């Protein structure tokens, strides 16, 4: 145990950072510094290198985390703040699924899961994760074995079924935070229920970690989480500028720390750096794409395996994703966190996430984003892998058009699995959608010249 702990600390604090420094040094020698615009895009973000370092270091230290520190596998919407003061190394299978998708490993991993009997109709993240568990294959080297599985139903109930299967496989405790769906505002008994579960979670996590939660450390983690959420919001809001200093596709990648490192100093330091860089680009008029003509909203998860092609097609035509319901979701509920009342405020915050709320709320968020960011069109990723996010999109698209004059297109895909992607069909729809904005009488693309756009 002690040897493993020492190895974990050495990798986390010395080996990892040293490898990162060597990578930076090599990049400089090789003249691979960012700066020049490529193709239809603006100059790349300098912060991306730091993001890569953070992510690499996280997965590198994870390779030797089991047996050294308690390890928890955690869903993206889980109130992870409770685990931080107990020293857990956290692994986010959804984040890992996204990496698998970007690295084009999902078909192979999914087929392994399908051989075990999992249906191809299930969530692509779950299939990738279960396939990775079955085969040991992963693009990050190795994932540490969990001591505790932590699942919160505020993003979907899929995670509940998925983590039940993981619990049966790993034979470790499963901590569930059940967050009943919220219509309007959460009723008091829902808040009580979630807060009670958070207290039960604390006790379960303490048993696994073998020590008690330090309440002062918990309060500090909550403060950091709230601050991190605010910083992420500031990064996103830089996109209000014209041109937007980055693209929605950039923001999908830069989302990783607020999901997987929420409540840590590293996360917040990173977002300060990113925010400052974005604001600097705004001041200098540097855009995420070279010629921003039409600004769009993105709804649902990214199509991870196809981000490069999709972003290139859009950018080449002067279309920029300037806001997304997905990235915005991580900038909202965290503001409700109160370090003075960790359980009570976390109950409120984690109940009120976008995916746990009704469609009128979702529509109101879309309208607000379109107005604030000046988006005149919307791409609805109809995600075969994510039913809770996708059900209602057909009506949302219609209402956004009729009530706000925002034109929309439904693009059917899967957030992780390229086998559910029909490129010709998708780009045909996308090009038809982009043609809607070529009307010279309606340059703002409202679909209605009487509706002024911001």
């Amino acid at each position, binding site marked *: 145990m002690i040897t493993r702990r020492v190895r974990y600390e050495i990798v986390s604090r010395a080996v990892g950072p040293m490898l990162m420094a060597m990578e930076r040094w090599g990049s400089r020698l090789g003249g691979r510094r960012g700066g020049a615009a490529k193709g239809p895009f603006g100059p790349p973000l300098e912060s991306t290198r730091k993001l890569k370092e953070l992510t690499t270091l996280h997965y590198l230290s994870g390779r030797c985390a089991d047996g050294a520190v308690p390890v928890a596998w955690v869903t993206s919407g889980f109130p992870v703040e409770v685990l931080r003061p107990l020293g857990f190394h956290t692994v986010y299978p959804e984040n890992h699924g996204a990496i698998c998708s970007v690295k084009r490993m999902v078909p192979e991993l999914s087929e392994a899961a399908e051989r075990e009997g999992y249906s191809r109709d299930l969530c692509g993240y779950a299939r990738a994760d279960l396939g990775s568990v079955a085969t040991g294959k992963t693009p990050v080297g190795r994932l540490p074995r969990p001591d505790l599985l932590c699942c919160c139903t505020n993003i979907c*109930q899929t995670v*509940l079924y998925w983590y039940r299967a993981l619990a*049966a496989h790993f034979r470790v405790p499963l901590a569930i935070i059940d967050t009943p*769906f919220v219509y309007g505002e959460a009723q008091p008994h829902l808040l009580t229920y979630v807060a009670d579960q958070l207290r039960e979670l604390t006790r379960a996590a303490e048993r696994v970690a073998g020590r008690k939660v330090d309440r002062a450390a918990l309060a500090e983690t909550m403060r950091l989480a709230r601050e991190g959420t605010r910083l992420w919001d500031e990064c996103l809001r830089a996109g209000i500028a014209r041109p937007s200093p980055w693209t929605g596709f950039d923001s999908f990648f830069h989302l990783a720390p607020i999901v997987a490192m929420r409540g840590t100093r590293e996360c917040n330091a990173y977002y300060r750096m990113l925010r400052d860089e974005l604001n600097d680009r705004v001041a200098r008029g540097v855009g995420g794409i070279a010629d921003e003509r039409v600004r769009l909203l993105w709804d649902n998860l990214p199509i991870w395996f196809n981000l490069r092609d999709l972003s290139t097609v859009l950018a080449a035509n002067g279309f920029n994703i300037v806001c997304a319901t997905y990235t915005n979701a991580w900038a909202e509920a965290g503001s409700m966190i109160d370090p003075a009342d960790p359980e009570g405020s976390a109950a409120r915050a984690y109940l009120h996430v976008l995916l746990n709320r009704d469609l009128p709320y979702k529509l109101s968020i879309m309208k607000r984003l379109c107005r604030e960011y000046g988006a005149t069109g919307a791409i609805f990723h109809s995600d075969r892998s994510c039913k809770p996010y*996708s059900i209602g999109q057909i009506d949302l698209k219609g209402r956004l058009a009729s009530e706000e004059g925002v034109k929309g297109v439904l693009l059917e895909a899967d957030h992780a699995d390229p086998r559910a992607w029909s490129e010709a069909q998708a780009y045909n729809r996308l090009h038809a959608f982009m043609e809607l904005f070529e009307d010279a009488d309606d340059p703002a693309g409202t679909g209605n010249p009487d509706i002024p756009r911001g």
Partner: protein
Amino acid sequence: MRNATISARKRLGYKTVVVLPVHYPRELFTAMDVHTVELWGPPGPPRGPGAGRIQPYACAIVRNALAFLASGGADAADAVLFPHTCDSIQGLATLAPDFGGWGKPALRYLHPKGEDGPAARAFVRAELEHLAGDLARLTGRSLETARLSEAIDLHARIDRLRGELLSRRAFLDMTDLELYRLLRRGEFLEPGDHLAELAVAARGLGGERVRRGVPLMVTGYVPEPMTLLDSLASAGAFIAADDYAAVGRRVPLSLPAGDGDPLDTLAAKAFTMPPCPTRGGDQDVRMAYLEALYRRSGAAGIVVHVQKFCEPELFDVPAIRTRFARIGAPLLYLEGELETSLSGQLITRLEAFLELVDSGRGTP
């Protein structure tokens, strides 16, 4: 028949609530003289203006339900109850009332997910109170403790008889189709009428095994299409053990003591039900339950009959396969989309499976 029952109850002045699958506290509705009619689809392709409003990769239960509600199929009812069974029904619970398809009151029942524990128990109790308040607004009268106790007692008798008919299936001289029609009439009949029907059927339970053929266990969501039961019978099989969410999983394993506050009794009942993936809970516990059910029934094979895109059911399929392979039980996987009849292809697979099972039992 559902419409006829609704009309008859309305003539008596009862309010009617249409209920989406699966789990809900029916006793509460009975106690407040509210007639419940369950909506499992209905089977067949979705029709009408709401048919295309949910993507085809969501399950047929919700796509059909939206189309049915939006086309006025449930207009005779006074409200719809959406239990929070899964993401898709949860989505429907906001889509239909908020964006069109259902303009009358929408009630929700949020049952807890995961393990039994103090927080979950307190939440069920609070949800029951909340739902009672909704029903009071609908009916104009409040919940009476004595009426709730009577309703709990009535449904306990129904549950006992349903459990007996299912567990002693081999001793009952009814075809599967007759039995399942009887059990599924409980989805819309007035509870007293349903109890009377069950009691008549239970009198047919003898001491001798009367069912011949290959005994099977079935697990899945809902026995649709019902022609599956005919196909099983034609191929020489019968259902000896049931784990359908719509049928067997709604018969409590034990009945809680009813000597305290009836709302507490009703809340406790939620934790006495067979394992169901829609409520979460430990997967190993469910597998142990399924194996015990299989062994107890003397079944010679298992049919896993799921609705396409139904995540709660689909996620458990590998564990079921593994568990039953370990004990050497033949398994047939059938996937449907709430069709009105079983396809020829599925019938052929069913027949081939039964030949395999039968040959394994050493019968000619």
